[in-house]
């Protein structure tokens, strides 16, 4: 029996700050950057108001905020930070240090385009660039999921079989700054669910001396990396266990992905983030016309549950994989590459197409999604309706690129 939720309305950034208040982590080093700035702003207000006793560390850059997070987490303190876009890029070097030292730091990432041109709006280029840094990555469609994912994050990251840092991602402005309805959980059951942090090894442990981040010679380094990879592999089981427990608490179901009208779908889209709400509205419209369309919304991208995704898509005739970041590899985006590879391994027979959309906050309408499904149907029928490098809603003289 789940607990009685509290109906509220708030933006995605407020929702995340509320979750942080309920968790009351030990340390938050942060440096402001649009559109995630509000998160440290709200948290520091909560600290000033005496609502939580988190130690806030103002720093001079994102490289420093992640470095301070590493120091504090290694010392044994539950730590988080928040950033976006170039802020994440500036953390690049130390992201790997956090992951390889098996430090379960939480990073609230409000996804924003990397430069250039300079742009403040939603894009996944920041987190996709860091997809191979060893961090867990969980994405949200709306404020509710950003809140729920934050509450589950430490349980996954700190699990003794995982011990990896975690990025909780949401779309800049589209969810971070949109006020929407949300159902919060009461403080006491949240505290009980998240629990206290008792790491096995940490720098301030009196009766154990240890080094964090020393040099490793070649005969040992490769084994360390393989051991780190095992944490990522183990995370799959833990993510599902935590989700199951969270469902008992909240009544809300989570997994690696959400299938919407997917079971009998002939034509499916695969996507991440806020666009999935828009896709669901398009699906309802097309289903009413008898079209067998569906959605696979990716929640967990690291670890990459390729087998599960492919299995869910195995009966589709055509699958469109949407990327909110440009791969600059002359082929397409990272979600497209990885999902297609997973489908190949699982011997899926569906036609696939990778479509770039929504760069730098370019809006996606229900009618855009309907157009893509229409084209997927034609693709399945053997028509070559997508150009060699499809971009949704692109304004270009070469129409073959435009979806």
């Amino acid at each position, binding site marked *: 029996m789940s607990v009685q939720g509290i109906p509220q*309305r708030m933006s995605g950034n407020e929702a995340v700050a509320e979750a942080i208040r309920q968790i009351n982590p030990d340390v938050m080093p942060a440096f402001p950057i*649009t559109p995630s700035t509000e998160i440290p702003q709200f948290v520091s207000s909560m600290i000033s108001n005496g609502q939580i006793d988190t130690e806030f560390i103002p720093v001079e850059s994102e490289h420093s905020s992640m470095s301070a997070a590493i120091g504090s987490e290694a010392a044994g303190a539950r730590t988080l930070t928040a950033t976006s876009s170039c802020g994440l890029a500036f953390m690049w070097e130390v992201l790997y240090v956090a992951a390889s030292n098996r430090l379960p730091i939480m990073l609230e990432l409000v996804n924003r385009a990397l430069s250039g041109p300079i742009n*403040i*709006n939603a894009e996944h280029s920041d987190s996709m660039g860091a997809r191979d840094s060893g961090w867990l990555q969980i994405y949200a469609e*709306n404020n509710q999921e950003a809140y729920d994912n934050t509450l589950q994050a430490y349980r996954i990251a700190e699990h003794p079989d995982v011990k990896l840092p975690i990025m909780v991602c949401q*779309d800049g*402005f*589209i*969810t971070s*700054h*949109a*006020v*929407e*309805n949300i159902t919060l959980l009461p403080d006491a059951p949240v505290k009980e669910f998240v629990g206290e942090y008792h790491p096995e090894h940490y720098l301030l442990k009196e009766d154990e001396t240890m080094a964090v981040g020393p040099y490793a010679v070649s005969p040992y380094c490769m084994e360390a990396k393989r051991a780190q990879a095992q944490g990522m592999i183990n995370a799959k089981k833990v993510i599902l266990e935590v989700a199951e427990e969270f469902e008992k608490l909240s009544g809300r179901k989570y997994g690696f992905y959400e299938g919407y009208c997917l079971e009998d779908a002939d034509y499916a889209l695969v996507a991440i983030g*806020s*666009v999935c*709400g*828009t896709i*669901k*509205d398009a699906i309802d419209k097309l289903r009413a016309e008898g079209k067998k369309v569906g959605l696979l919304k990716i929640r967990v991208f690291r670890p990459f549950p390729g087998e599960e995704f492919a299995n869910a898509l195995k009966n589709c005739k055509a699958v469109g994989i949407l990327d909110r970041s440009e791969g600059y590899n002359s082929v397409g985006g990272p979600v497209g590459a990885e999902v297609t590879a997973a489908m190949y391994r699982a011997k899926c027979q569906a036609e696939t197409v990778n479509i770039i959309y929504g760069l730098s906050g370019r*809006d*996606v*309408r*229900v009618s855009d999604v309907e157009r893509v499904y229409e084209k997927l149907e034609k693709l399945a029928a053997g028509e070559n309706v997508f150009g060699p490098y499809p971009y949704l809603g692109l304004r270009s003289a070469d129409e073959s690129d435009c979806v």
Partner: protein
Amino acid sequence: MNSLTEIRWHGRGGQGAKTAALLLADVAFQLGKHVQGFPEYGPERMGAPITAYDRISDNQIRVHSNIYEPDYVVVVDDTLLESVDVTAGLKKEGAILVNTTKSKEEIIPHLKGYEGEVHIIDARKVCHETLGKYFPNTPMLAAIVKVSGVIEPETFINLMRESLEHKFAKKPEVLDGNMKALRLAMEEVH
């Protein structure tokens, strides 16, 4: 029946269009509605045109796109009529509300043949008489509630009082002026 009402706000950075959109969503939420209130930023600077949006519905709102076929449009600054296509997609069963010192006859030629209702209000006058400062978003919020009927006006006034009492807990002297601005705006809009 389609219970969804969509409102698009056109303002300039610093005029409070985003705040007004969020306040409207807030009040509708308190009445048990599903809401969405969000801004669309261009370059972030004072005076640049900005757009803000409201969706108010009896059902869950999932769509995350901007609003292209609004039921209502609010123009917080009539100089925008020269540069922004404010009536784009506006439903003719709906209405447009413009803050202006001009007459309806002077405004209508700038609305690209819009066939629906046109309402105007002199928010500067309302602000001058009630607030002593120019914060056009407060009167525009009351005026669009009156024009759209999306919330019953008296219910809106009462909820705004609660909300403003909370917001201005440390500046109670501001409350009266704002409440007067809301009421006067409802009388002045036509």
